[in-house]
């Protein structure tokens, strides 16, 4: 076996020391009637065979490596500098355990401390934690924090319908038994209208920045209204947008969460990603998850350690701020390396490239017969296109005839938005790709749509 080093002689010697005749004897405490069931799995394969099998599976997918992609909606294809993968593949990082033993983990601990620092700078907050599973669960934990902050006396959460639909769904899943209730996202109310629903029951008001449709809502004065009602303001932010736009901190947010995937993490069919969570220092003892702090060792040398540990499940058990244990540590390292190498100027440059290309694409598409783009508000890297036919049909034509993975079909989550496509443009889309998209959309408007063949996989393990 590839990864089991024992020889026959080893086994024999070890069994002798233990004082048993066979390895099977080690399982005598397991009831005989259930012991040693056969596992009906395919026979083990050599490394070569596994590679061949998995290459087949991988090649049966239309990847952004071969296709132009204009799909975003919470997961984005941004540039990932080569350096990131090289750092992540250092065994000292990726095969390390959670840094509970600081003497053996200063590398991980300092990297997380630097990550926390960068997330504070990016969001305009004073404290960030070491990560959540993704942006959606970071939001769910923000709701938990608000619930704890108000000691269950305020139970209402107001969601803007411009918050990612899956994030709102996850927050509801998390809180199906917690007594929190969620309002505001039934229709298409504006942020200003939603603020009318603030009351003494409201714990948290949640907006997204830019919102799910790519637009920057006018948040001027919102924090004041939320705080006047005694509630907290949570902003779900795109970290690339924060390279360009005002920080949620400057807008008065109390909690900033979001998806860190754009910061050097591949699309990878939805995970592993990086939930970031930042807040003001006064709330730090209510945060879920791990936090790294600076201290000194016995020699007075600067050192880092996981701190405020009595919030966590292994110590506080049912009174913990969350059950979270394993987080997305390595993804936080990816973001830390990304933000280091991009730096002050690079992140701004990436954000500006997205902005310019998205605006170019929006203007070109808006000129097409049958299409219109909503440019009523400022937008960043995504925008909504109203198409002359259902988005699913447009996308099928784009993929089959032009090799383009089209935008997100908003009708899936917003029944009042039939034929609306959410298009994402990043620094990874060269002008020629955008021009091809425009041409393809024009073609799709008049294309005689007969049912296309499904993309067929070449291989599959039984």
């Amino acid at each position, binding site marked *: 076996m590839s990864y089991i080093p*024992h020889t026959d002689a*080893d086994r024999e010697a070890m069994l002798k020391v*233990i004082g048993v005749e066979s*390895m099977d004897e080690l399982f005598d*405490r397991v009831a005989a009637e*259930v012991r040693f069931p056969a*596992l*009906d*799995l395919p026979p083990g394969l050599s*490394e070569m065979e596994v590679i061949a099998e*998995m*290459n087949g*599976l991988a090649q049966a*997918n239309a*990847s*952004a*490596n071969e296709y132009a992609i204009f799909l975003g909606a919470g997961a984005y294809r941004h540039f990932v500098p080569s*350096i990131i993968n090289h750092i992540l593949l250092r065994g*000292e*990082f990726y*095969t390390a355990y*959670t840094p509970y033993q600081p*003497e*053996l983990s200063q*590398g991980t601990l300092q990297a997380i401390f*630097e990550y926390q620092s960068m997330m504070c700078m990016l969001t305009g907050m004073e404290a960030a934690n070491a990560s959540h*599973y*993704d942006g959606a669960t970071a939001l769910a934990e923000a709701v938990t924090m608000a619930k704890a902050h108000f000691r269950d006396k305020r139970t209402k959460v107001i969601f803007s319908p411009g918050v990612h639909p899956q994030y709102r769904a*996850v927050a509801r*899943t998390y809180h*199906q*038994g917690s007594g929190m209730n969620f309002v505001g996202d039934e229709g298409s109310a504006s942020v200003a209208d939603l603020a009318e629903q603030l009351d003494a029951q409201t714990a948290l008001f949640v907006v997204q920045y830019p919102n799910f449709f790519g637009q*920057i809502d006018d948040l001027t004065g919102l924090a004041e209204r939320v705080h006047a009602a005694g509630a907290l303001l949570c902003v779900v932010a795109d970290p690339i947008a*924060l390279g*360009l736009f005002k920080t949620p901190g400057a807008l008065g947010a109390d909690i900033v969460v979001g998806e860190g995937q754009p910061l050097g993490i591949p699309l990878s069919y939805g995970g*592993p990603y990086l939930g970031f969570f930042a807040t003001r220092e006064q709330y730090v003892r209510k945060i879920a998850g791990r936090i*790294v702090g600076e*201290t000194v*060792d*016995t020699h007075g040398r*600067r*050192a880092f350690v996981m*701190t405020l540990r009595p919030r966590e499940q*292994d110590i506080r058990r049912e*009174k*913990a701020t969350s*059950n979270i*244990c394993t*987080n*997305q*540590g*390595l993804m936080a*390292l990816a973001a830390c390396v990304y933000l280091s190498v991009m730096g002050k100027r*690079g992140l701004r440059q990436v954000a500006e*490239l997205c902005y310019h290309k998205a605006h170019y694409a929006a203007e070109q598409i808006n000129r097409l017969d049958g299409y219109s783009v909503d440019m009523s508000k400022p937008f960043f890297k995504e925008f909504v296109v109203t198409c002359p036919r259902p988005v699913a049909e447009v*996308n099928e034509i784009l993929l089959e005839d032009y090799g383009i*993975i089209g935008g997100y079909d908003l009708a899936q989550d917003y029944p009042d938005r039939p034929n609306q496509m959410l298009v994402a443009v990043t620094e990874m889309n060269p002008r020629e790709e955008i021009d091809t998209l425009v041409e393809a959309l024009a073609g799709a408007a008049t294309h005689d749509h007969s049912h296309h063949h499904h*993309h067929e996989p070449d*291989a*599959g393990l039984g």
Partner: protein
Amino acid sequence: MTIDLILQKKNGEAPPPLEPLIYDLGAPGRIGVNLPDPDVPEAELPADLLRATLDLPEVSEMDVVRHFVRLSHLNYSIDTGFYPLGSCTMKYNPKLNEDMARLPGFAEIHPLQDPASVQGALAMMYTLQSWLAEISGMQAVSLQPAAGAQGEFAGILMIRAYHLANGEAHRTKIIVPDSAHGTNPATTAMAGLEVVEIPSDANGDVDLDKLREVCGEDVAGMMITVPNTLGVFEAHIKEIVDIIHGCGGLMYMDGANMNAMMGVAKPADLGFDVMHYNLHKTFSTPHGGGGPGSGPVAVNEKLADFLPGPIVTIIDEGSDEEPPLYGLTMPDKSIGRLKAFYGNFGMLVRAFAYIAVYGGAGLHAVTKHAVLNANYIRARLKGVYPMPFDRICGHEFVCEGHWPDAEGIHALDISKRLMDYDFHPPTNYFPLIVPEALLIEPTETESKEACDAFVEAMLAIAQEARENPDLLHDAPHKTPVGRVDDVRAAKQLVLCCRPVLDPEA
């Protein structure tokens, strides 16, 4: 201690940091990445919406490489040494798995693509679901939970939803043994249910009389770990399951210890209704310095409709010429979505590669060798380290890190001293029911020589504890930093390397 450290101590200065912060490297104006100029006409930026400053490092690519490589040298890792961390299953992380997860056909696909365009990914997930169902004997699997704790949360939410669907809203109690992982009670509380803790008996097994006492029609279910957190196959699993089922509750198995279970017993055959896996323990996906993990849940027919989703199903069976068509489906009574998209997909790819390498007989061999290693180390330490439960163990065992004739020595001292011998310490102070616990789990990937070297270090430390206890109290001596002041870290909070500048200033 190095000469300069001695001199600095004499002069009362703090020794220099091991590695500067990234913010303290570089110089204003330095850039680390080359980006293209815009190839489209530039749009006007909305001046009133822009931030004025952005305080990020200004470093070259090589500054960044050297910084993080130097930091990596300060870490202990599986690739550099033996990690006998009980309940964590720190086995070797095969390099093959890393390459597979990085294939462009897996790493460069978008979660919201038309399922028809990602049939290879869905076929892989479907197969993994069926493999995990087979290993557990369960009927259905959701790969969505991102970590073990989220798998537990899914399981408890499903148990809650099941009782609600049966009109039994009064079932609000989850029974948890006192030996449980902290995630079990924390999960229960998050689901809005009440924790009832029951004690273990003198053998470390669940106290059956106490269990019967707390069982009633308010019980929603029970969570236990198999083998338990003492590393022992509970003697009375069947009785426990019967008691809980008898009062209408469901049985949850914490799958943290599945490395002792593969091909040994299927949780469904033991009577469990729901369990989670930790792919980052049993199936070798790396711990990543704290994550990402992956915590799929497996359930029997009672809970299949309640799984978190979407899950992968076959939409069209196909034929001899046509492969099946896979799709994403939300189970009928699903508790909902636990995270955006479908799970930590990259971890699923790695676990798939791992299971493909081993097959069924191979996974059983994994378990047998994990248990062999644990028992070998246990047998060799016996008589030197007190063991509260002297018997054959599963893939891990617990001993006590203190002696009546070595007063003042604690499990923590032994742990720290092990670092000087270049070993990561075992899990200490868990399970909570054993005083000064050292929970030791070697995993199957360590050779006999590695196990022997660890035993020799443990034996040497036991001797030092009597002869030179200060060596232990002051340990570690050979690590990049000495013991760190965690009280100061919590009292004088420094969570960010410099004050956040008001971006509007």
